[in-house]
């Protein structure tokens, strides 16, 4: 899981994915036949084959914040990048791309404001040179929750498991594939958290026959949780639907068959609201037969998301088998 730790430790919210992209290129270059980066920054890694065109996709970006106004005392006002959990920001440490660390505070301190307006919040940076400085923070600088990867037994906790865990699955799958006749495209997309943006343009370029997205999905198996059937550690979830896609039965059945042949018992994901790249992919161009494997995740978009190591490893096994077996 060292690679996963490395992936989660960089500061790369939507629109600023380069640090993740650089790590991935470094990891995969010896396994790839072709590597391209497109206009918006999507990373497309191809493993050539004569068979069907299959797109495997995970988004590189995470949620975060962007500095908007820095006052004359050095306190920083900000706006959100993606749907970062406002409650989770209160008193959290955040880290800027230039390594400066700060604490997010809601004014007034006892605020019970449930709105998603970040207008009343600010960052107090731990930096000697706050005032009259040239080298600290300016408008447009980005930050995320401060890196905090922990692993114990089967449980992993870190910021940005959504969706570095998915990227990790794709990378390890690419490494694990022995041989295949399928034409495989591992696509690491940008700006999913801003509205599935990278997925739209990368799919337009590829127009694949099939697509499988690997992303995280919320599971509620906690005291404050809802009625979702997903449990951490109970296996990767075959996505049936989310707010942006009704998954194609061909992919649902494909994933189930591969899981069964590997003696892995999958869960099933029925998500009422919440969108993923799969939504953008399947309606691009003339349409793509699309589905997804979801990694169950607790506490999405907070400083400490939690996933199961086995769920991630089993996702890799299923995806590897999908890639290796000839798709007709």
């Amino acid at each position, binding site marked *: 899981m060292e690679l996963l730790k490395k992936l989660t430790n960089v500061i790369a919210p939507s629109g600023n994915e380069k640090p993740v992209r650089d790590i991935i290129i470094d990891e995969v270059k010896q396994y790839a036949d072709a590597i391209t980066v497109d206009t918006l920054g999507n990373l497309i890694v191809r493993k050539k084959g004569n068979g069907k065109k299959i797109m495997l996709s995970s988004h590189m970006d995470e949620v975060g914040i962007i500095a908007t106004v820095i006052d004359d005392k050095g306190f920083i006002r900000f706006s959100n990048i993606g749907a970062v959990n406002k409650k989770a920001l209160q008193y959290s440490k955040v880290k800027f791309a230039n390594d400066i660390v700060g604490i997010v505070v809601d004014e007034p301190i006892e605020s019970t404001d449930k709105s998603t307006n970040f207008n009343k919040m600010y960052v107090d940076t731990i930096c000697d040179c706050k005032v009259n400085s040239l080298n600290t923070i300016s408008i447009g600088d980005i930050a995320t929750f401060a890196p905090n990867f922990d692993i114990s037994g089967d449980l992993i906790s870190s910021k940005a498991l959504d969706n570095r865990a998915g990227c990790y699955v794709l990378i390890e799958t690419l490494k694990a594939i022995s041989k295949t006749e399928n034409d495989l495209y591992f696509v690491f997309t940008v700006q999913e958290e801003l509205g599935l943006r990278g997925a739209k343009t990368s799919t337009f370029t590829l127009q694949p026959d099939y697509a499988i997205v690997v992303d995280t999905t919320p599971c509620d198996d906690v005291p404050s949780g809802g009625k979702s059937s997903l449990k951490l550690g109970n296996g990767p979830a075959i996505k049936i639907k989310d707010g942006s896609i*009704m998954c194609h039965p061909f992919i649902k059945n494909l994933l189930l068959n591969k899981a069964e042949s590997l003696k892995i018992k999958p869960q099933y994901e029925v998500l009422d609201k919440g969108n993923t790249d799969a939504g953008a992919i399947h309606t691009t161009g003339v*349409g793509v037969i699309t589905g997804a494997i979801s990694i169950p995740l607790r506490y999405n978009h907070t400083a400490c998301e939690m996933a199961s190591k086995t769920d991630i490893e089993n996702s890799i096994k299923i995806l590897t088998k999908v890639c290796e077996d000839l798709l007709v």
Partner: protein
Amino acid sequence: MNKLFELCKKEGISGFEFEIGKYVRSLFAEHCDETEIDALGNVIGILNKGKNHKIMLEAHLDEIGLMVKNIDDNGFISFVEIGGVDAAILPSLEVYIHGKERIFGVIGAKPPHLQEKDESEKIYKIDNLFIDTGYNADEIKALINIGDAITFSAKSTQLMGGKIATKSIDNRMGVYVLVECLKRLKNQTINSEVVALASVQEEVGCRGAKVGAYKIEPDCAIVIDVTHGVSPYTTSNEGFELGSGVAIAVGPNLHPDLTQKMIDVAENNNIPYTIEVCAGHSGTDAWQIQISKKGINCILVSTPLRYMHTSVETVQMSDIDAVINTICTFIEGGGVC
């Protein structure tokens, strides 16, 4: 009327249109030169292929419904909505769950005797409702699974004055119109290629129409859907009278000149019609179709429908005939884009 009932009876919620897709394809095949089903399940029928002008007639195939979310230890089933389902219609509704077998169920609710004083005045939330199939957990888990589709059970009822009530008139009525138009146009000499598109997944975001229009690339499109009908709960400011004919839409989503031509056709042929104002999103597949590739000019025609998105949707047959008549007369008269 029976053909319409037959279509409404078919079970196919958004994302699960494959069975009804095959049926509709067979209906198209009776009149079309070619038919096909695309990656997402859209059904396409082509008449007069090869003419240098292409008109697309479009209606969505899917209906709203529910989906199995979880099965509790006592066999009761919790669910999510597929498309815009008003929770108010659900208590005591009869449904079918499509798992390994088609299982009958009832949506249950707390008996009035056991409710708190204020509770009985609030609409149920979907989270507080469940389906009772009469099986225990082990029995039901052998028959159905998380993610299975759930459809509403509905009889087709004839009311007075040529009105009918059943589920899914939104938008099986539109599919019926497609078939009837193909039937009539087949026997005419027309100078356009006519492509019928029965789209999937409109109720969850106009998804099928987006890819269908992209593939077909027509010169213009006539979209057929339903609009609100005046009822005790819908005033004449919000809807149209049943029997008032075809509702022709105007607004930024629709092409002004083509729409005027359509209005002229109704006017000149004594077809009853009204004007529907859509100030932005028309709430139909026309929203996606209009901005496909280099742009497709759209016309939107609708029938007034009472109680939309319930299992007792009510429509007047003469309004549906008005839609068919207007579209066919427009195309036969050489409606050019």
